[in-house]
């Protein structure tokens, strides 16, 4: 450091130079420390090992993941997910274990009919195997700043996984939070965590659990059918501004939204939906252009390659089919990691795409919920 040639002219310059000279040298390795902080809280990747596998139901297993060296995992908020890498792609899975115990993450995986990755994990992943994930992330979690301490959770199927984490946290940390779980399952044999849920409810007055079975069963005396407005009110009482979380199959979302806002007049901003993948059928969204056949192939070109893919396949999946793996995590339009630039051609953005206001100016799309309507050229 050489002072400016005018420095000495300034009143007080000597005092400031003395102050600089008198300072204790900062000997901290800031680069190492910064890296450590980021790795502790928000690593891009976690290299984990399957510690054990628990059979929950005939179609569902919980994989308990630990670090190979047994060290604590990054902290997370109950409800958050990690992206699991498998078979050339990745999928988000909510952590079902408690954030109060960072020695492991539990991922509860149900076989999705026709689901390549859920089947791959259930059929091949065993104790001792290695598994790579993203760090925990996601916005579907209790936020004490405005969610309140009296909440309702509508879960469908394996959508109970984040609720499980939230409940376990309440118990482990002794939180003074009322939590009302309405949990819909197809059949008696499909109910996940049933014994633990019932024990939690029995042991904690703030925790209420109601199972609702979609199909009647002679062994089941409880409520059956859909989570209708009437059923919600009957089981959870008047919602009265309570935060309502919804996690389950895609079909549950528009239905729950209609029941809660339309029938019960619950404010939209007091309902939070967990993201749940690209739309099963993008053409059913009203802004899908008329006449665009989703089955018809178009050409997707990147700098490295060009390939054909049907219009109705999300760009992210199409790229992965071609061996290109953009960074991605939520695969639901929200996290923005798979942001790509469309240089030529036209893509369709599904309603799920949480684009920024300025994104269209430069042709950005979230590849996981973007569809090539014409031949396109991408900067990936």
């Amino acid at each position, binding site marked *: *450091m*050489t*002072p*400016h040639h*005018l*420095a000495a*002219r*300034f*009143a*007080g*310059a000597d005092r*400031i*130079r003395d*102050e*600089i*000279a008198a*300072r204790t*040298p*900062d*000997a*901290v*390795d*800031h*680069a190492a*420390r*910064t890296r450590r*902080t*980021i790795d*502790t*809280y*928000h690593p891009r990747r976690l290299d984990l090992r399957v510690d054990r596998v628990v059979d929950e139901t005939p179609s569902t297993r919980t994989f308990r993941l630990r670090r190979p060296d047994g060290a*604590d995992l*990054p*902290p997370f*908020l109950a409800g958050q997910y990690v992206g699991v890498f498998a078979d050339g792609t990745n999928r988000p899975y909510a952590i079902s274990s408690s*954030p*109060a115990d*960072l020695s492991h993450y539990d991922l509860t995986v149900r076989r999705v009919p026709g689901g390549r990755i859920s089947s791959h994990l259930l059929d091949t992943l065993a104790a001792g195997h290695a598994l790579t994930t993203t760090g925990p992330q996601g*916005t579907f979690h209790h*936020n*004490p*700043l*405005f969610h309140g301490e009296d909440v309702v959770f509508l879960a469908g199927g394996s959508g109970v996984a984040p609720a499980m984490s939230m409940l376990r946290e309440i118990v482990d940390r002794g939180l003074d939070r009322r939590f009302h779980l309405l949990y819909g399952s197809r059949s008696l044999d499909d109910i996940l965590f049933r014994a633990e849920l019932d024990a939690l409810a029995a042991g904690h007055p703030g925790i209420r659990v109601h199972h609702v079975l979609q199909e009647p069963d002679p062994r089941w005396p409880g409520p059956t059918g859909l989570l209708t407005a009437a059923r919600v009110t009957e089981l959870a009482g008047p919602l009265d501004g309570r935060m309502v979380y919804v996690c389950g199959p895609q079909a549950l979302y528009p239905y729950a939204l209609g029941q809660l806002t339309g029938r019960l007049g619950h404010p939209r*901003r007091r309902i939070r939906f967990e993201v749940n993948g690209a739309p099963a059928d993008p053409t059913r969204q009203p802004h899908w252009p008329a006449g665009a056949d989703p089955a018809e192939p178009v050409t997707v070109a990147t700098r490295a390659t060009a390939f054909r893919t049907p219009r109705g396949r999300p760009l992210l999946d199409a790229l992965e089919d071609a061996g290109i793996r953009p*960074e991605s995590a939520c695969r639901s339009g*929200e996290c*923005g*990691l*798979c*942001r790509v630039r469309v240089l030529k051609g036209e893509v369709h953005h599904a309603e799920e795409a*949480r*684009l*920024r*206001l*300025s*994104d269209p*100016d*430069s042709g*950005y799309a979230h590849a996981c919920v973007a569809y090539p309507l014409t031949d396109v050229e991408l*900067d990936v």
Partner: protein
Amino acid sequence: MSGADFDAVVIGAGNAGLTAAATLQRAGARTLLVERHSVPGGCATSFRRGRFEFEVALHQLSGIGAEGQAFTLRPLFDELGIGDRLTWVGEPDLYRTVVPGSFDVTLPADWEGATATLDAHFPGNHARLERFFALVRDLTFWQIAAMRGTPADQVDELLFRHGLRPARDVLDEHFEDERLKAVLASYWGYLGQPPSRLPFQDLALVLFAYLEFKPWHLRGGSQAMSGAILDAFLEAGGDVRFHTAVDAILTRGGKVVGVRLDDGQEVSATDVVSNASLPLTYGMLDGLDIPGAVRTDLASRRIGVSGFVLHMGLDATPAELGFTASTTFVNTDLDADRTSASWRTREPARGICVTSYDVEPIGFAPRGATHVSLMTLQYGSAWDDVEPAAYAREKFAYAETLLDLVETVTPGIRGVIEEVDVATPLTMSRYLGHPGGAIYGYDQDATESWQFRDSELHPHVPGLHLAGSWSGMGGFQPTLEAGARVARRLLRSRTA
């Protein structure tokens, strides 16, 4: 033209990295821009939550000025060919500044209006205000002249007399009313030093920048600006790699010869511009010890302050919330020294900057709603004693203290929260990669003044160039300018 893969590699797509890369590429230097994240901008970005988009860092852009006004930032955007792509949103007021029970003043963004308003609130100060503002203008004029190389004998003595004095001394000399002094010094939070330690030249520069050129924002927020600068770079043929970190700056014979990326790929280049922090930049030097002069210099500098921010989406209009100005400073009392000391702790927030992005809308909130950010400065070290498992609890507990403070000016704000996300110094560290999550680089006290630090001019490693808040002043205007300036200097050295 060398045989290298690129003429230049720019590390980091923050403000200075972007303007450096775009300036280089547009001048014909083949440039690779490397960014760890998925979007350009560094601080200058935004993110989506629910119905809202949240501005991350830009509160008020200084230097835009009116069209045709001299010495503004506009030519920088024009030279990059993007001046007409940005929609500027002007703010008529500097700020509303409040100490509950003491004062509540909204200062218009012009010299006469500000003088009149202050004289109305604090009668009998008109002449003093005119004298003070004249000093602000004159000192800033001469400071810029001196920095641009005007010979010493032609520089007015007032610069040397007042430039490095603590701002508080100069305020004490002009005014008696502590409240008036606090109102005038409200921007100290944008610089991170209380008036007792802030060099007057910095306060004067900031007041001048906003009073003369007005505060601005832009449609689409700072991300629109970052995106447009990136577009200028790409349209000129530049290469960008997102999701990619630089692991090492490669040297041979004491000179920079390229970088190694985190996938192991080595990229050769004759010049490397670093928009990363100085400790990390020099720490990445491969095959070269950090030069002694640099080592000594860095050891005498102090990692600066970070921030704690609540990004909020509110289900109410600014009018319903009672927001009349885009920027509102709320302080518990007049004791700036105590407030600054509190930034090293997690004691309840004592001062916040409340920015309402819908008094003059930038397009981030749906109709009938408001996007607001609450921010206090805070050092990363305030979080050193927090165990990772307790982080979330501590984060939300501290966030409540910012809400408590904003409730003094917008009672009931908690009841209309639709979205809120919290960023801590650790969040800043994660996204910026900066030690301590520092947002303005090193602590910007008098020891960081241009009179004493010359990292930007003398990086001490041939082929290495430094551009950003760590080698100059922090904030949007200074860093945008630094990137373009460093790139022009690099280009001149190549042709020389």
